[in-house]
Each structure stands twice: as C-alpha cells, then as structure tokens.
C-alpha cells in the first residue's frame, strides 16, 4: 500500500467515525410528545415544571455515580445542556473548588467535608421554597449533624465502606478490620484511595475514636497503617471492583455499590460488615456560592428528587437510597429492581450495622495531620 492510499484509508475512517457520532447524538427536544433517551427510557414529566432560562448546567460529581438516563432526561425535558466534570476524592474536589476559577453549579460533597465547605463560605444556602420535592426524602437521612436543617445540602445517596471478599479464593474470611493485617493477605487487597476512611478504620482497630484529634494516637495509627500497606496491592477510588473481578486481588475495602456489582458478577464476592463497625457515609448535593445557572440547578435538584426519576439510582447504582418516593415507585412499577435492592444485605443493611457504624467527621485543625499520614504511609514502600 502506498503512502497516499494509506492516508486516504485513514481519512475515510475518520469521516466515518464523525458520521457515526453524529448519528448517535440525541435529537433535539421537539414537540410535546414524550421524551425518550438514547437508551430508550421514556422521561417522566417534571412535576412541577420550573422556569428555566439558562441553557447549561455545570456539575462536578463523583466518577460513575449517577444514571445516564437521569442526565439525558433532564437535558431533554428542560432543553439544558449538562457539562460534567468528575472527581474521585473529596479532598480533590475541595482543592479544585477552593482554588476558585471554576464555574460549577452543583457538587456532591460527602458528609465530613460539608462543614469545611460552609466554613470557607464556598456554598450558598438552599431556598427550600423552590424545592417542593424535598418532601420525598427519608427523614432519617435529613437534618444531619453536618448540616442541621439542610440549610446547604440535600442527600443524594448513602452507603457503607466495608470489606468485600472473594470467598472462592480466600478460605479464612475476615470478620473484622483487624483481620486485614493477617500476613496471608499480603498483596491481595484493593483499598479505596480515601484517607479518612482508611485512617479511621485503623484508629478503630487500636480502640481509639475514629475521628480523634490527638496527635499521639494518630502517630500510633500511622505506624499501624504502615504495617497494612504490604497487604494492599493497589489503591483505587475510580473502580476498585475492576481489580477484584479481574482476579488481581481477592479482598477489598470498598463502597457499597462496588461490592454490589462485584457480587452480581460473581456471587462468591461477599460483603463483610466488620465487627468493630463499618464506615458510613452520606453524599449530598450542594450549591456553590458562585453558581452561574441557579435556575437550572434548582430545576435539576427538584426534578431528580421525583420518585419516578430517582428510582433510576436504584437500578444503576446500588447504594442506600434516601428517597422514599423512589423506593415506593420502584416497589410499584419495577418489582425486580425493588427486590434486588430490598433483599440485598449490601443495599439494605441490617439495622445493627447502621447503629454500630461510624461516620468520618470534620476534624478541623487535625485534618493536616490526616493528610500528612496518608502521604507518608503510601510513599513509604
């Protein structure tokens, strides 16, 4: 093949791929008929329909954390283009938001980082009169310690960090966090790359408060954690399930949703709630102070809180669902999705797990120590 015809082949390929992506793109919303997403999901009408003049909405969200259909439907129903940026650690999100120069509207902070965001005046209070669908949320997940009265945040999903085990590969299944230190697990663990969860878990095995401010206890935890590092094959917060499913590792310190998917792929994966108490968390929506598209942001919050929309999270991302209307809707209309959620001890954990679990809380001044321990422990191999 001569150089020229080779070039022509590539040019044709390039044009084909352009044409393909054009075909795949969504048709613009037109007429009054029902809106259908690219995957064939019929979008529910907004209730109530809000006044939106913005044409864009900028989201800064966790990687792989909300349903594509939810996003497409909002775009179709309100004619708003959604720009999405992703992060895989609260600290990373905070660093970007605090450095300024970003034009995001909504972020998804986890409980413990919310007080810091409020203290640094990065959020704006929510106008509850524009959020009629707040009534759908489960009161158990509202009005929490990190934001009394939900002045700044609304719950999105909640979950648990615990131990996932491939019971085919691991004969001696761990029952506690302390078990993870066993030498036979050397190089067989994947851990989420989350400083707070992992350090808090270590503090717990030492019998300390998982949110301690005491430098001496933290120093002890650092040394203890350094002993765990040889057992950890990799840190991954984007998709820890991948290494588990691919067989690179046999145990994991992971989130609810990752464990659920791993279990779906291979029932040998079991989620173990450690005896010391699992790590609990609640992710939220929060509105940034300089949000450029307020009307679209409120419309998004209100639309996604509808039961007939939010149930999509039950279908796509298996976490603890704080939206009662969504659960009721799924029970009524999507019995399979509902029973998968309701019958799994991963998404519907026993009450005592929730009672015994711990939350990572804002530690104020001590945050610098936590960050430093994390750098030093992970760098020391």
């Amino acid at each position, binding site marked *: 093949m001569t150089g020229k015809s080779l070039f022509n082949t590539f040019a044709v390929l390039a044009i084909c791929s352009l044409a393909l992506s054009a075909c795949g793109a969504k048709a613009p919303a037109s007429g009054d008929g029902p809106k259908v997403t690219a995957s064939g999901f019929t979008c529910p009408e907004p209730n109530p329909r809000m006044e939106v003049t913005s044409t864009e909405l900028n989201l800064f969200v966790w990687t792989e954390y909300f349903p594509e259909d939810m996003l497409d439907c909002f775009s179709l129903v309100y004619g708003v283009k959604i720009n999405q940026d992703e992060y895989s650690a609260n600290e*990373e999100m905070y*660093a970007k938001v605090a450095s300024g120069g970003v034009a995001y509207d909504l972020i998804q902070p986890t409980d413990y980082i919310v007080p810091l965001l409020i203290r640094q005046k990065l959020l704006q209070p929510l106008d509850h009169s524009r959020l009629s669908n707040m009534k759908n949320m489960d009161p158990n997940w509202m009005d929490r310690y990190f934001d009394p009265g939900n002045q700044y945040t609304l719950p999105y999903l909640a979950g648990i960090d615990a131990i996932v085990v491939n019971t085919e590969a691991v004969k001696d299944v761990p029952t506690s966090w302390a078990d993870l230190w066993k030498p036979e697990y050397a190089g067989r663990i994947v851990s989420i790359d989350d400083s707070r969860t992992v350090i808090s878990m270590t503090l717990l095995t030492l019998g300390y408060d998982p949110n301690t401010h005491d430098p001496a206890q933290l120093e002890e935890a650092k040394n203890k954690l350094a002993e765990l590092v040889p057992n950890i094959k990799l840190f991954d917060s984007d998709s820890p399930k991948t290494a588990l499913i*691919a067989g690179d590792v046999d145990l994991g310190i992971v989130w609810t949703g990752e464990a659920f998917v791993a279990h779906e792929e291979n029932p040998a994966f079991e989620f173990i709630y450690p005896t010391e108490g699992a790590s609990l968390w609640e992710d939220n929506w929060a509105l940034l102070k300089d949000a450029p598209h307020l009307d679209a942001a409120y419309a998004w919050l209100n639309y996604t809180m509808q039961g007939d929309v939010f149930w999509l999270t039950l279908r796509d991302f298996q976490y603890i669902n704080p939206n009662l209307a969504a659960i009721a809707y799924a029970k009524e209309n999507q019995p399979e999705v509902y029973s998968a959620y309701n019958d799994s001890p991963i998404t519907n954990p026993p009450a005592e797990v929730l009672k015994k679990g711990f939350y990572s809380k804002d530690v104020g001044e001590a945050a610098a120590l936590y960050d430093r321990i994390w750098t030093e422990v992970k760098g020391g191999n």
Partner: protein
Amino acid sequence: MLKRLRENKSAQGTLLALPTTLWLFVLLIIPLFLTLIVSFGKRSPDGNVIFTFTLDNYIRLIGFSSDCAAGQATCFDPLYLQILWRSLTLAFNTTVLVILLAYPLAYFIARAEPKKRSTYLFMVLIPLWTNFVIRVYAWMMLLRKEGAINIIIGTVAHWLGFNFVPFEMLYTPGAVLVGMVYEFLPFMILPIYTSLEKIDNSLYEAAADLGANAVRTFTKVTLPLSMPGVVAGTILVFIPVMGTFIVSDILGGKQVILVGNLIQRQFLDARDPTFGSAASLILMALTLIVTYFYTRKFGFGEEIVAA
C-alpha cells in the same frame, strides 16, 4: 521605520523572539516565581496558604521534621529522599533501556531504502495518535493476572503439560518501568534516526578502504557521529520521566510513589500547596543539575558534530 527595520538585523531578531519570550515570561517565569513564594508559606488547617517566610517545607523534604525538639527518638525520616532517589533511578533505568531498544531500530531505519524509511517512521509514530492515558491502560489489560500475557503463557504451558502460576506483573515497579519505556521510546528513535541518517555513506566506504571491520567502523564512525541524537533523545526522555505521574499511578496502583505523584497529591488529596511547591522546585533543581552535568560531559548535541 520599516526600512530601518529591514536594515537592522538585531532588531529583526528581537522582534522574532518577542512572542515566545512573552509566552515564556507570562506562563513560565511568573508562575515559577509564584511557586517559589508559595513554597516558603505555611498550610492553614483548612488547607489554605498562609504567606510567610519559613523553610519548613524544604526541611521536611530532606527528612527532618520542624517540630522535632520534643525529644523523639527518630527525628530523621528519609521518606521524601527515598522518593526522589526512586524517581531518579527509574528515570535512569528507563533512559538506558530506551537507548538499548531505540538504537538498533533507528539504525535499521536509517540504513533501509530511502523509499521505505518514511513508512517505517510512520509506523513508529502511529502509537502516538492514541491518547497517552489510553496507551497506559492498554498495558493494564496485558499485564494483569488474568491478562493477555498470562493467558497466552498459561495456554502454552497447559499444552506442554506444565503447571502454571500466573505472574504478578501489574502494580509492581517493573510494570511502571515497562510502561515508561513504551511511552517514551519514539522520543529516542527519532533523534537517533536523524543523526544516523545524516552520516555520509562515503565515510563508511573510507573506513572499509582503510581496513576497518564492522565493529571498528561502528565504534569509530557510526557511534561517535550518532551521539548528538542519543544526547538529544536522552534529554527528551529523562526529563519527562522524572516528572510523570500517570504511568506510576495506573500501572503502579498508586503504590509506586514517584516525585510526580508526590507533587500531584499535595495539590489535590493532601491539600498542601506549600509542600507541593517546594517539592516541584526541588524536582526542577534536581533535573537541572543532572542535565547540566550530562550536557557538560556530552554536549548539547550539535557541539559534538562541530568538534
């Protein structure tokens, strides 16, 4: 005015260099200066920069802790020096391996028929059309426990009746080295090829006339004349490897910490821009020192041709 400019060669030169100079000043010199200021600052508990003048960040980098007076047994912790040393040795190993792999290929291409050369060079460049990160991810598929390499070896071993335990390749320092070598290979092939291709054929004929055998021709003619390419390639490979963090992040499972990872983590996860700035400047200084001594020994490439 225009006429005067046409006559004034040095003014022409200034004018031509102006856009790049401005560019470098605004986007390199000023940020570098700001980095220097931040590196002397302190981190507030919430992760903001408090502007002051302290050398704490540099003291921490070389392994001493500033709050060490309290009579702790071990005040010295060489953690960050180890990270720097690890980056330095990895960059060195990568460069040596890349030279060993690139030189024969560049030689082959340079000695091929002129018509075929452009096809070969084109093939060297094709991988660069794919995004850097995607190419690293592709290595994950190859190296993992149930990845392509283990599957192939396992199948062959099975045929031959051997018992095969899959190799642990992914998330090891070796995986990071392989990834680095793969990513930076083209940047060595091209400069070596360029200098090999420039060698006049009559020099080889002269060497043969004077009775030099193949080995002697290579060591006395080819190698010295292609050194400018090797030097240029080394600079193009060594410096980026020192600072890259993506390869070690993905193939090392965030366990193989290089100085690039350390810096990136300070600005994101650890929220300590002051320490991150200090580490960036130390990395720059280290790279400059190594490059300085290297170029003093081997020249910057072209000098050797002139000499």
